[in-house]
């Protein structure tokens, strides 16, 4: 079983399944892909994220050895001999996915719009929704909390009226069943540090102070602005954009002590992509250090500086506040020994990477450990980075520590290799 259908879990599932073993892939959300599905283009090659992700999600969706269970979570785990018995709980989608053809008519006809978590609050979705048009599985779920049928006692029901195959099932109940598996790969990924906790950075109040994933959505062709850079407050094209690195990271006092590892790189990418879209615009990046240790990474950052003329300012930002129609950023440039203030049109906070919510809960269920940063603890940080310490349970992806896509994929494959080695030894 693989828990978490981000790129790391997908990789693990595919590697194991392609070796001939059955895989159950459990994903909390209605469809797989994880954060990669929200990204625009990826450093350092600027490949379109969806384009390199979709072949993999589609392969998972069609794979005869993979049982894909989305909208589901692990309820309980018991070991039985060499095996693990896992109780899985599936939330009611209120749509019979066996019947549903994924035609999308229901979403089109549903009259109600709410803000979308997938768009990180800067875009909307219908009350009956899929995460994206490329979703795998491409089957919708009804958001009960906002659904007029549920909240107003049977009113509306537009989706049910229009569904050509009568797949809408308002009576659907949650399902709980048990799976018996030989090993588990835990690949539950990450979340971002909430902006509300960065009170000196305006605490998430101002619409034009956004986090990095929100900016990915602005950059994405499939995002709420169809890839045009428009600031949330008034839709204007921002002429001066400030990126604030280490927002919450490397801050043992009030944030997290560790370096989030990927924000230096994705900030360079975002600044560069911004310049590709807004040629006459100016991008500023406040940083403490630039950590660009991967293959081709330093060259990529240099390209952002030299070719795209992104101005890097070495110093941490102290305060961000609204001023007239702008957002004032007070920072420092320690290299020149100056304090700097920039009246920005848009501010992007490179907020810290946190282990995904629910990691603590899973830790209890699986009997694995969590380190002082909140990430899953490996059996040995140097020589056993994939093992959890509990036999048969392996770690992959950003749940074990912040990492970028190539590393998450590599670790997914590594976890698969561990599982296969375990199975081989048991035969």
């Amino acid at each position, binding site marked *: 079983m693989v828990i978490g259908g981000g790129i790391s879990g997908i990789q693990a599932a595919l590697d194991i399944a392609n070796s001939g073993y059955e895989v159950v892939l459990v994903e909390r959300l209605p469809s797989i892909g994880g954060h990669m599905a929200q990204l625009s283009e990826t450093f350092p090659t600027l490949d379109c994220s969806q384009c390199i992700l979709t072949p993999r999600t589609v392969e998972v969706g069609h794979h005869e050895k993979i049982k894909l269970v989305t909208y589901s979570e692990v309820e309980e785990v018991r070991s039985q001999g060499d095996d693990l018995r896992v109780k899985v709980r599936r939330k009611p989608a209120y749509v019979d996915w066996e019947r549903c053809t994924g035609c999308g008519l229901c979403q089109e006809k549903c009259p109600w719009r709410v803000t979308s978590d997938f768009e990180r609050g800067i875009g909307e979705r219908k009350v009956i929704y899929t995460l994206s048009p490329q979703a795998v599985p491409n089957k919708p779920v009804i958001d009960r909390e906002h659904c007029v049928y549920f909240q107003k006692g049977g009113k509306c029901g537009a989706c049910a009226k229009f569904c050509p195959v009568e797949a809408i099932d308002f009576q659907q109940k949650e399902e709980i069943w048990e799976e018996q598996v030989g090993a588990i790969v835990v690949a539950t990924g990450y979340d971002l540090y909430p902006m509300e906790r960065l*009170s*000196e950075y305006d*605490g998430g109040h101002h619409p034009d102070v956004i986090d990095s994933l929100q900016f990915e959505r602005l950059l994405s062709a499939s995002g709420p602005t169809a890839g045009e850079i428009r600031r949330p407050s008034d839709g204007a094209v921002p002429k001066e954009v400030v990126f604030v690195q280490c927002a919450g990271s490397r801050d043992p006092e009030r944030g997290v002590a560790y370096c989030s590892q990927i924000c230096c790189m994705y900030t360079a990418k975002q600044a560069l992509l911004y310049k590709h879209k807004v040629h006459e615009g100016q991008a500023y990046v406040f940083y403490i250090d630039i950590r660009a240790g991967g293959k081709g990474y330093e060259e990529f950052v240099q390209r952002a500086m030299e070719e795209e003329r992104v101005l890097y300012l070495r110093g941490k930002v102290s305060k961000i*506040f*609204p*001023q007239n129609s702008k957002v*004032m950023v007070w920072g420092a440039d320690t290299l020149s020994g100056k304090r700097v203030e920039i009246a920005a049109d848009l501010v992007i906070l490179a907020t810290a990477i946190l282990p995904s919510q629910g990691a603590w809960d899973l830790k209890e269920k699986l009997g694995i450990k969590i380190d002082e940063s909140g990430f899953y603890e490996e059996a040995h940080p140097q020589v056993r980075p994939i093992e959890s310490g509990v036999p048969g349970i392996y770690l992959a992806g950003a749940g074990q520590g912040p990492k970028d896509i190539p590393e998450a994929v590599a670790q997914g494959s590594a976890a698969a290799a561990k599982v296969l080695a375990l199975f081989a030894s048991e035969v």
Partner: protein
Amino acid sequence: MRHLYFPGCTLSTKAKGFAASGEASARALGIDLVELSQWNCCGATFPLAMDNLLALVAPTRILLNAQKEGDHLVALCSICYHVLKRTNRLLREEADKREKINLFIEEEYRGEVRVFHLLGLLRDEIGFETLSQRVQKRFQGLKVAPYYGCLLLRPFQEIGLDDPEEPRILDDFLASLGCEVVEFSHKTECCGSYLTMNSSEVTRELSHAILRSALASGAQAVVTSCPLCQFNLDYRQGEMAAHYPGFAQIPVLYFTQLLGIALGIESDTFGLADHHVDPRPLLREV
């Protein structure tokens, strides 16, 4: 309810109006502020040098006197509150320093007294909702800028009154009096503090930045709980006007002055006439 109260030097002399309005308002709300029978100056700064324990003796004596008469102590002045609160924490939590200070004062004090700011009492004991119901004259439409300054809030770990970046207490207090509270960027910026003693231009600049931000947000008055802030923001407006043509003056009030008036108390003793920028025309208007 009876509350031991430390007025401090400034409230007994230059800021009598702050004291009078605070005491009268508290009384009207059932908070009986009983002045410590014996007190000295707190030192007006919390000593930042680790080897300067001597400077902690003065505030320790105040706390010790309070312990003899009760179990907690209320201050109105942000700086007194800051000094007493931090000293008290140090005496409670840092045993080695406590021992040395106790040797100086030749008595035993272990930080037992609880230190309050009147704003904290209003929020936590009376409640702003209740307060709002007690208001007789609502300041309908009066636009005020709640100015917190530094020492009422920082360091949060030691003071703990409110979030140092996005404080609410003064905002909520003023809203309960019916004021229209404006959001402004400089509510926790420094007014210059004691730099006023030998860097008057810097103080003018810092205070001016605060007032400019308040004015830009449409405020008609600035409200504070610190006599040093009040002085820097009020007294230096003459220089600001000379230095920045077109600078519009703005009254700087103590929170207790507005409280007293709102509760319907006669404001004769509130020292309103002592301000450099006279708040009375504005107050008459509303």
